[in-house]
């Protein structure tokens, strides 16, 4: 099992993009990373690569408050798409919303593995990834920075 381990971040916050990539870098985790500014863009990527398992992410870190398609709407669409995807994708919600209502809502969605409140320190991300690697068992991969349409403020 020497497949590259692909991470996906969906968030509209540019600074967050910066801190995440920097965290990964500082942790020395050289992984393939996908970054999208809203749910819709991520969705289009999934649909485009539905047949290519090697391109699909293993983990998605999803923000809730986003323009055009927010986190909830993304999950809805993802549930519809899931049967066609031939890969196990783990989804974490990572958001600045500490609203209990949002937490409750996330709990009842089985596709969401955990709910993380920002700021997510590099150590926290490291722990999650190590956990996942243990279950999936892949180590090496190329660090790959993907920038898609990123012009949204």
């Amino acid at each position: 099992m020497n497949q590259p381990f692909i991470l996906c971040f969906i968030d509209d916050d540019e600074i967050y993009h910066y801190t995440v990539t920097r965290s990964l870098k500082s942790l020395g985790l050289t992984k393939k990373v996908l970054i999208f500014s809203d749910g819709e863009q991520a969705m289009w990527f999934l649909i485009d690569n539905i047949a290519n398992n090697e391109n699909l992410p293993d983990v998605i870190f999803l923000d809730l408050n986003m323009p055009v398609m927010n986190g909830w709407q993304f999950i809805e669409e993802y549930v519809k798409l899931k049967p066609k995807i031939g890969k196990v994708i783990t989804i974490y919600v990572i958001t600045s919303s500490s609203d209990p209502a949002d937490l409750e809502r996330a709990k009842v969605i089985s596709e969401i593995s955990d709910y993380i409140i920002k700021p997510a320190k590099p150590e926290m991300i490291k722990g999650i990834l190590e956990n996942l690697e243990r279950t999936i068992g892949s180590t090496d991969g190329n660090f790959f920075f993907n920038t898609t349409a990123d012009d949204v403020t």
Partner: protein
Amino acid sequence: MLLSNHQNLRRSSFLFVLTGIFIILLGGIGAAGWSLNISVLKSVFPSYATMKFNTALCVITSGLCFIMLIRYDDLFLKSLFRLLLVAFGAFSLISLSQDIFHYSAGIDQLFATDYNSITRGLPFPGRMSPSTALCFSLLAISLSGIDSKSTIYKNVSQYLLHAITLIAFISLIGYLFKVPYSRKFSFFSTMALNTGISFLLLSIVASVINFNLGFTRFFTGNGIGNIMARRLFPGMLASLIVVGYISIELQRGNYITPEFAVVLSTVTFLLIGLFLILGTLVAMNRIDLKRTEAVNECLRLNKNLEEIVLQRTRELKHSNEKFIKIFNANPTCIVITRLDTGEYADANPALVEMLGYTREELIGHTSLELSVVTPAYRQYMVDNMNNKGFMRNEDGVFKDKNNADKHCIVSAELFEDRDQKYMMSFIYDITERKIIENNLQDTKKSLEFLTDKLNNQNKQLLSFAHIISHNLRAPVSNLNLLVHFYKESTTQEDKDELWGNFETVIEHLNSTLDELLETLKIQEDIAKEREALSFEKTFNGIKEILIGQIKESNAVITADFSKAQEIVYPKIYLESIMLNLISNALKYKSPERIPEITITSDNIAGEAILTVKDNGLGIDMARHSENLFGLRKTFHRHAEAKGVGLFLTKTQVETMGGEISAESVVDEGSVFKITFNKMQA
């Protein structure tokens, strides 16, 4: 009517007719005697005078006449009655005239030959006796006048009947006392026994027809004299006849002398008279006693009645006093009006006080004349009275002298007094209660309004809390991480890079705080000064501000403010609202279409409404309706989309008590609708 004064008309009529039939029968027997030549039928006893055939005919005729007199009602029978009356009257008169003028008219044996008289050698065979003829003449006259309208004629008829009775009676007494058949007595003695009976019966019965005239009136009626007459007369008559008969027989048998016979009869009659008087006396005393008792009873009853009347009067007076007290002291208005005219008959002090009219101003005037009630309400009350007879606790409005409304609860009752219908109304003034009720309602309304407003503010506060948690946490957490990296960074280059990011975050934080502060400012400005603003003028101002974008996009903007031209609203807000909506419409235009923007004002149920319609990109309402007006919510990847405009607009509209809603179809356009002042109803 002939028998109109008879109490039992059927019985009287029956008895009269029966008498008539009996008379006809007597005459018939006589006539039969002549036809069959049976002497018993002619004279009862062979030695007595016979009822001549002419007499028999006259008896039958008079009997018929009598029945007709009683029973006739049609004109024909009346005429026949008169004819028969004239016939036997004339016949008997001719017969009588023969005796007076000593001639023969040839009627004596016209129908039958009188062999009896011829064999006995009596004069004028077949001729009826002069007394009989006289009686028939009198009877004819009497019967013709018995139902006359003239009292004199009626009286004459009555006395003629009495004369017939007398003549017949004398004849019959003659037979009874066996008075010798002599020349001197011949006038009476020549009348046959059966003829005499006929006359006696007929004359007495006929005299009963007018029982209140002549001697008959002695025996009829319930007067004490009448009773006495009825008791005494039969006894007197019988005793006289018996005494006379006995003394005549004794004298005839030569037991006593004629003089003694007279003495004997006189004394006997006196003695019998005494007993008769005694009997009458006892009877009369008994009657008198009864009368006295009746009088006493009557007096007693009268006294009782008087006491009852007094008692009733007292009770009535008492109840009347009670009523007057209830009427005058009642805090409820009581008024009595005539049902037909509505005229006030009486009004109690409570009503006088409520309406402000004096009692004198009310009484005699109608409620309509004084406009106390409307004609429709009065009619309603009258209808109630006529249909049900009462009203119970119904609402009514009355006007007092100052034309002020009095809200009342009304009950009413119908009653009659001296054939006049009246309505007694009980009116309870609840005007003050009504006012308080209205005040309460107003207070309730304003409380509800306040509650709505508070709820609204609460909602705003809640969403504000959300905004803070969502929009401030993100930059703060970013700062956190950046600080973390900064501490760990070793190269100056790295530090510079981080520093640049710090600036971005702080800028972002700053603008977010500015927006929040602006929102807070709006919410503080609830009492912002409102002024009358023209939609048209405001719109023109906005157009000038946006002139650049409009020209650039070739947008076609149409406005129609004809339905609502003005609004009372804070000037800055109206401008801000219009600016945001129109600039949004321009900003999110479709790249494939020339923008068309329509702005209309409307007035629905007193609420000013502003609608802004465009043909732009539209918003996916299924996805975004929840967040449409949220802070930092954007729906298009547009460089200028900040998610602030609609949020501010909503805050402004809601703070001023209005409402904003949107409809949209992707790639067709959006409609934003603002209802201003919704809560200031």
